[in-house]
């Protein structure tokens, strides 16, 4: 594990310093294999949370043989505490579209979609203006790749790529079994690349600066910069671009209100880190994060926090697989029962076991990740759950 000092950087949100879509134009002059190799060398990993190496995804998709391939930009940003993709789409949409277009060019795709969460519908008029500008340049560069907006209809689980694809096909947003992965069998059965908004923007920046420069940011495990959505008990809430690999104690010092009790790293699907572990926690090391970082000070009841998370999960579980559908409800009922004394304190251990079973047996990331926040809150704040 390596770490370094907390450092704000200005890569993704750097102003457009060149003519619109110059990076796209320049990249298209290069050899496709070389471009993919550059992305692999940059170490860029998916910025939505799962952290799959982006370059590999593009490489696999490029190797697929198909009459049509799809590129989907996942803007179904629903993780509580996350709002960086909204800011990206408002402030630097051209970097996002450039990333999509470069991806299309190297993989041989002609059709792209931005899957925009329903709650962000107000972004559409501006995005359409930007898309018109993109189309104009694509035509100039002789690039046959169009981008359309697909508006979601309100479901957290649709941020999961196969659920997203199901919903685009007009079905319930229930995740599919993997494999096959979308790069083989995605939207309408065709090879499909689904990347997060920030992943596309970051890939554009890799091509602007080159992998050699990009890799200077971050640690051996996690390269580059990452957007963090910071909310909660912080005097500086907002989106910050930070170099990956800083320690949580420095983070809390910079962004907390001086009374930070715990930080939720990676949203509700991530881990709740108590103050005593801040020094040993490096953000972005080991577990990748989508960037949602919620700060709690000592006035907050961790029982209320956990209760809120579990209500969220119980509501957003798609209900398709039993471990997640029943598990989320039982965890919620379980902590209520322990709180009001109808179940003994030891019952919490059964609940942790249940959450671990959900991790092993749930079909998708939603059910699999409940144990992250559940165990970390129950283990670290047991007395708050009990009394």
């Amino acid at each position, binding site marked *: 594990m390596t770490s370094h000092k907390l450092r704000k950087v200005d890569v993704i949100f750097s102003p457009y310093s060149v003519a619109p879509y110059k990076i796209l134009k320049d990249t298209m002059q290069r050899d496709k294999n070389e471009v993919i190799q550059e992305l692999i060398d940059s170490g860029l990993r998916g910025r939505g949370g799962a952290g799959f190496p982006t370059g590999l995804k593009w490489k696999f998709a490029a190797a697929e043989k198909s009459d049509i391939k799809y590129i989907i930009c996942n803007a179904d940003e629903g993780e509580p505490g996350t709002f960086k993709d909204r800011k990206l789409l408002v402030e630097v949409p051209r970097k996002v579209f450039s990333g999509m277009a470069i991806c299309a060019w190297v993989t041989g795709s002609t059709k792209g979609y931005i899957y925009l969460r329903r709650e962000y519908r107000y972004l559409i008029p501006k995005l359409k203006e930007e898309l018109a500008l993109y189309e104009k340049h694509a035509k100039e560069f002789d690039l046959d790749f169009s981008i359309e907006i697909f*508006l979601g209809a309100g479901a957290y689980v649709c941020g999961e790529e196969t659920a997203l694809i199901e919903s685009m096909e007009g079905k319930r947003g229930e995740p599919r079994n993997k494999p096959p992965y979308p790069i083989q069998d995605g939207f309408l059965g065709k090879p499909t690349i689904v990347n997060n908004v920030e992943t596309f923007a970051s890939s554009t920046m890799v091509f602007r600066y080159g992998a050699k420069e990009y890799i200077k940011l971050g640690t051996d495990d996690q390269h580059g910069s990452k957007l963090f959505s910071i909310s909660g008990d912080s005097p500086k809430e907002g989106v910050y671009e930070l170099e990956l690999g800083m320690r949580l104690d420095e983070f809390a010092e910079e962004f907390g209100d001086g009374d930070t009790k715990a930080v939720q790293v990676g949203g509700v699907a991530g881990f709740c880190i108590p103050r005593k572990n801040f020094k040993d926690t490096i953000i972005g090391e080991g577990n990748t994060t989508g960037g949602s970082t919620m700060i709690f000070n000592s006035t907050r009841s961790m029982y209320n926090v956990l209760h809120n998370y579990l209500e969220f999960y119980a509501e957003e579980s798609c209900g398709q697989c039993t471990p997640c559908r029943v598990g989320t409800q039982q965890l919620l009922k379980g902590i209520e029962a322990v709180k009001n004394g109808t179940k003994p304190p030891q019952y919490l251990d059964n609940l942790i076991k249940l959450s671990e079973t959900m991790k092993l047996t749930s079909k998708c990331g939603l059910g699999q990740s409940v144990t992250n926040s559940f165990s970390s809150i129950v283990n670290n704040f047991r007395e708050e759950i009990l009394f």
Partner: protein
Amino acid sequence: MAEVKELVKKLSKKYGKTRENLIPVLQGIVDEENCLSKAAMREVAQEMDISAAEVYGTASFFSFLNTKEDGKYKIRVCKSITCDMKGKQELIKVMEDMLKVKLGETTQGKRFSLLETNCIGLCDKGPAMLINDEFFTELTPEKVREILGDYIRNKY
């Protein structure tokens, strides 16, 4: 009935009759009719040549495709943890008093529905809410009185 039929025809012509256009078509109906009536869903099923159960199955999955008629103005208050911490409960109380309904209910005459929703991505400016597609941030009871008062007086 005839109107719904016309609307469904128009939308399926605009987006296409294949299954992958189902959600845009349903969204179009909700925009016009404020909800997906059984009649509308049956029309869609017929037009797209799928079963009505399939249409309902998809519609009932998504929180923005409501199959029961509710208010013309849907107030969705974010209930995720950071907005909750910053006092969304108080805001709901204020709006319950103003609208004379409880959370989850619709006013008489179906003008307003007071709802909660999961994270709407405005956490850095919480507490936040949506009224239809418009968003409001950094809310206080006073601010909510002003915003909702304006809707009550001026928007029909």
